Structure formats: C-alpha cells, structure tokens
C-alpha cells in the first residue's frame, strides 16, 4: 500500500510534465491538423535554456533560489517561445498549402535539426544540475516503506495546475482564445470572418513552446539531468498522451498525460523498468488502432 501510494505520487508528477508537453501537440493538431513532431525537441531546448540560464544567473550572483527560479522560468519561456515561433515560421508556414504529409516530414527534419544543433552547441554529454530544492515531507513513516512527497513534486504539480488554469482561461475567455477556437473549427471560414489566421497559428506555437519550456524546467528540477536526446522519447510519450486523451481536446491532453505518467510509473514499479518505453509505445499503437478518437476526442468525419 505504501509502495503504491509512493508510485501514485511519482506517476502524477511525471504525468503533469507529460500533460504540459501534450497540450502543445493537441493545440497544434486541433488548429492546423498536423503533428508537430519537433515539439518534443522544443521541450528539450527549453530544458537546456533553463539550465544555462540558471548557471548564468548563479555566475552573475543571483543565489536566492526562488528568485533565480522565477527568472529562469521567465527567460526559458520567452526564449523557447521564440524557438517555437521560428520553427513554425521557417519549417511549417511555407508548407501550409502543400500536400498533407509535407509538414509532418518537415517537422521530423526540424526535430533532427534541433537535436543535432543542441548536440553540437552544448556537447553530447549528460548535463547535471545539483538539486536546488531538496526538502520534502514524509507522509507515512512505516517500517516497510517510507512514503515521501518532495518539494519538487509539489512545485511540479502546483505549477502545472496553475498553468492549466491560466491556459484554459486564455482559451475560453480572451480574444486570442476565441480566434484559436475559430481556427480550430474552420480555418478558411475564420480567415474570411477577419481572424488573422497566421498570427493565431503563430501564437499557438508560442504558447505551446512556452508550456513545453515549463515542462523542461520541471524535468530539469525533477531529474537533475538533461541531454540532447530527452526530447524524442518525451515527445512521443506526450503525443501518446494527447492521442489517448483525444487529440484536439485540451482537458483530454491533461488526462492523457496523467494516465501515461501513471501507467509508466506503475509499469516500472511492478513489471520491468527496461520495458517502460515499450509499454508507452504499445499504448500509443493500441489506442491509435482501436480508439483513434481517444477518451475525449470527437470522431472525425472523413469526406470524399
């Protein structure tokens, strides 16, 4: 029981991170119907920017951890958004009226470009960061197993919940959110009714990248290491989460993220840790084949 509770806590933490990345996938898919394959690597770039920004801040004498973290959050969100914007501008926008698979292939190319770019710029080695936030709470102190809730986990979950709330508010209440929903329904009609489609799509990428950057910071805090390859696996898992929740649906992405995090954690805890990625990928395959609309997704009507 104690073991189960501990895995539940770990799974929710991991799931929050996946959920934040999954939102980027699901938003882009909802609006322009493409899988932004480079999104996982945007997440990786965000983690790297956060790492470097933090080290630079420490070198400049900002040693108070809360202040440094807040600044890192701002810097990483801003710069990663710039990456998201640039990727859309360079790799996707020129192909918007091309054949259907062209943006997908371009996105795969962009993913490889970003991976190799970070590998060359920062080296292929794993980058460690000493733990910044160490303390935690001991929930159950039984002789069999000690259940702990670390401060990092609290921060990860709380930040995710806050960002989700802010993001839902943006989509539901603001002008930008209305434009985004309009574009999701019908891109052409939205542009006829005066929605600036290009700008809305750009903002979508920017918001997705900013959330991915936060996920990157969380990953950095939680695991304490980053390398240039984390983006691929995290990206595919987050995409699995988006598909599981029903791609195009924002609450679905969050639920899917939580589910994937929990499944992965429990699989590692009770079966085998080597095959945890196999479990995640198998879920992706099974869901896509048997339940392509996901949990909260709408069935898509194919037109001849």
């Amino acid at each position, binding site marked *: 029981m104690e073991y189960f509770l501990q895995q539940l806590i770990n799974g929710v933490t991991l799931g929050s991170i996946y959920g934040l990345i999954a939102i980027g996938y699901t938003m882009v898919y909802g609006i322009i119907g493409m899988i932004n394959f480079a999104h996982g690597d945007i997440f990786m770039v965000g983690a790297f920017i956060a790492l*470097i920004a933090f080290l*630079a801040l420490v070198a400049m004498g900002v040693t108070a951890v809360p202040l440094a973290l807040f600044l890192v959050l701002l810097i990483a969100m801003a*710069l990663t958004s710039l990456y998201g914007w640039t990727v859309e501008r360079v790799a996707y926008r020129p192909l918007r009226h091309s054949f*259907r698979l062209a943006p*997908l292939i371009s996105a795969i190319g962009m993913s490889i470009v970003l991976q190799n770019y970070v590998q060359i710029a920062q080296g292929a080695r794993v980058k*460690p960061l000493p733990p910044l936030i160490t303390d935690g709470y001991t929930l159950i102190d039984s002789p069999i197993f000690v259940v702990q809730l670390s401060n990092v986990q609290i921060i990860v979950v709380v930040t995710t919940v806050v960002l989700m709330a802010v993001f839902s508010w943006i989509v539901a209440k603001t002008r930008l959110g209305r434009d985004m929903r309009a574009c999701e329904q019908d891109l052409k009609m939205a542009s006829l009714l005066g929605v600036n489609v290009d700008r809305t799509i750009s903002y979508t990428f920017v918001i997705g990248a900013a959330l991915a950057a936060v996920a990157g910071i969380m990953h950095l805090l939680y695991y304490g290491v980053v390398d240039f390859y984390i983006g691929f696996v995290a990206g595919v898992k987050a995409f699995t989460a988006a598909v599981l929740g029903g791609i195009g649906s924002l609450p679905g992405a969050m639920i899917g993220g939580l589910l994937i995090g929990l499944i992965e954690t429990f699989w590692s805890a009770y079966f085998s840790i080597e095959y945890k990625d196999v479990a995640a990928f198998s879920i992706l*395959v099974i869901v896509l*084949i048997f339940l392509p609309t996901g949990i909260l997704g709408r069935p898509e009507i194919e037109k001849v």
Partner: protein
Amino acid sequence: MTQEGSSSRHRDFAGALKRAALAALVAFGLFSLLVGIRTDTGPGGALELTARFETLAVLVAIAFVGVFLRETLFSGATLDGSSYVPESVRRFTAHIAQFLGPALLVFAAVAPIIFYNNRYLLDLSIQILTYVMLGWGLNIVVGLAGLLDLGYVAFYAVGAYSYALLAQSFGLSFWICLPLAGILAAFWGVLLGFPVLRLRGDYLAIVTLAFGEIIRLVLINWQSLTGGPNGISSIPRPSFFGLPFNSEEGGFAHTFGLEFSPTHRVVFLYYVILALALLTNAVTIRLRSGCGGFRSAERGRPCVRTKSPAARSASTPPTPSSRHLRWAPCSEALPVRSSPRDRDSSALNLSYFRNRQWSSRSSSWVAWARRSASPLPPP
C-alpha cells in the same frame, strides 16, 4: 517617375534593413544562451560556463546579412530553384541523364576493380549500396503506396538479427539465411501491416514510428537473446557459394588458383549487395510500370490509400490489399501486377486485388507468389 521609383526603392531598402534587423534580433534571442554560452563538465563534476560571444556575433551577422540580401535581391520573387534554370540547360541535362544512368551502372559494376587496392572506398561503396537498396525499398512503401512508414528501418534490424541469430545458433549458411531473413522481415511486415494499415496519413506515420521504437527497445533490452547494446559478435562470414574466403585448401583463393587476399570477400560482398540493390530496383520498375494499382503516375498521387473513402465506397476491404502491399516491399521479390487497363482507377485496382483477376501476362511464379501471399478464400 524616376523620383517615385527611387523613393520606392528607398522605402524597400529601409524595409529590408528593418526586416534584417528584426531577423538579427530573433537570431540573437535564439542563439544567445545555447550558442553564446557553452557548458562543460568541470573537474569537480559541476558544470562550468564558457562564453562564446564571437560565434554568437557571427551567427547574428549571418542572419542579418542573409535576410538583407534576400529582401533586396529576391524581394517578391518566390525562391523556386527550377525557375532560375533556363529551358535549354534543363533540356541538356535531361539529354545527358539518359546516358548517365547506364554509365553509372557500368561504373558501379567495375568500381571494385578500379578501387581494388583501396579498402576504405570498397567498404564505403558497400555502405552506399546498402543505403541505396534501403532507399529503393522505402520508396515502394512511401513513394509508390503513399504510406509514410517511419519504422521501416525496423525491418532492416529484423533482417540483420535474423542472419546473426540463425547463423550463430543453427549454423545456417549465408545463402540460406539471406532469403530466410527476407521472409522473416516480410512476415513482420504482414504482422505489423495488418493492424497498422487501418490508419491513415500521419497516424500511420506515428504508429510505424512507435513500432520501430518498440523493436529497437526490445532488441536492446533482450540481453539473453541479442546481447543488448553489445550486439552479437563472431557471426559466420558469407562464403562464395560454399567456398569460404580463407587461405586454406578448399578456400576460394585456392580453388580458383589465386593468391589469398582478404579483399576477395569484400569485393564479393560488393557484388552481392549490388545485385540485391538492382533486384530491388527491377521490382520497383515492374511495380511502377506494370501495376497501375500502386500509383497513377499521371495524377501524381498514390492510388492505393488503404481505407481511403473512395476505396471503401467501392466496397473494397482495405486489409487484403494491404497485405499485398506489405508483402511486396518487404520480401522485395513479389511483384504485384494488374492489367494495364486499370491503370487510372484506384478503386478498380483495389477491387482488382480482391477479385484476383490477374493479368494473363504474369509469369507463373508471380501467380504462385500471389496465391501464397493471399490467405483470403476466393470470393
């Protein structure tokens, strides 16, 4: 007139400058931390920062100059490479291309003789031909059938591991393992293709990617069978149709009265992979020309799009045809053809697979391959 022209050019110049400055700003933002500061693991294990402002400045300058040149030189023009090539040059290159193919083929055939003493070039050309064959095989799936298969390389792994395991565990020779590996990979193709081909477009791409990753992860983690990341070593080497490439009596060099050289084996492998690559190409050409079922070249879009609404409205089950599709690329020896009169119609071609009214021109072994490749009872 001139005044107006110069003023608009002036405005363009200012606009280009503005855009270039914006691009430089974006480049600065992009590269400021990731390129401008490098992290290295210091002696204590902690990360140390090194500033690289020169590289950052160079990159920002490149962005500025690049955008400025693009705005001033090509403003308004779309960057389409083909429009800059004159018609005469294009005709000339098309003319040359006719002879280039056969010439390169002859070159490929004599390359090991020319580069006999250069082991590096021989190894490199074997690698090149391997990639050529992979590319041609992938072209059947992606190019002809229009299925973006991102896990294609998993079949490459299946083939390699099949040979390694069969040769090591059962002592089978290269020449038995070669078709066996192809058949096993084809079997995997059927196994994966059956569920996967119910999907379309980008979902298919993602699922094939996931399958590729699953196979890779299983191969890496199944230590007892595959040796994990260390791989399998001391795999028996291919022989010349039974004659081993060694210096002993009964070896290749001894039988043909040659002086022993390890290069013989490499040259032999070169010709094997060349022949296999050409076989792949021949199959592709047959598929393209004989079988309109794969693609109508006129319309330039794939005809066989499984589960495409058009195919379904023609009451064509997607999967039996998918099975044919999967067979052809993976075994690379089972050409599927239909009669030329169906060349333009995707729906007709798909129903063609179902009805199996095969062209009378097809040779008997092709018909056998079709029969064995299609487990469905005749309708």
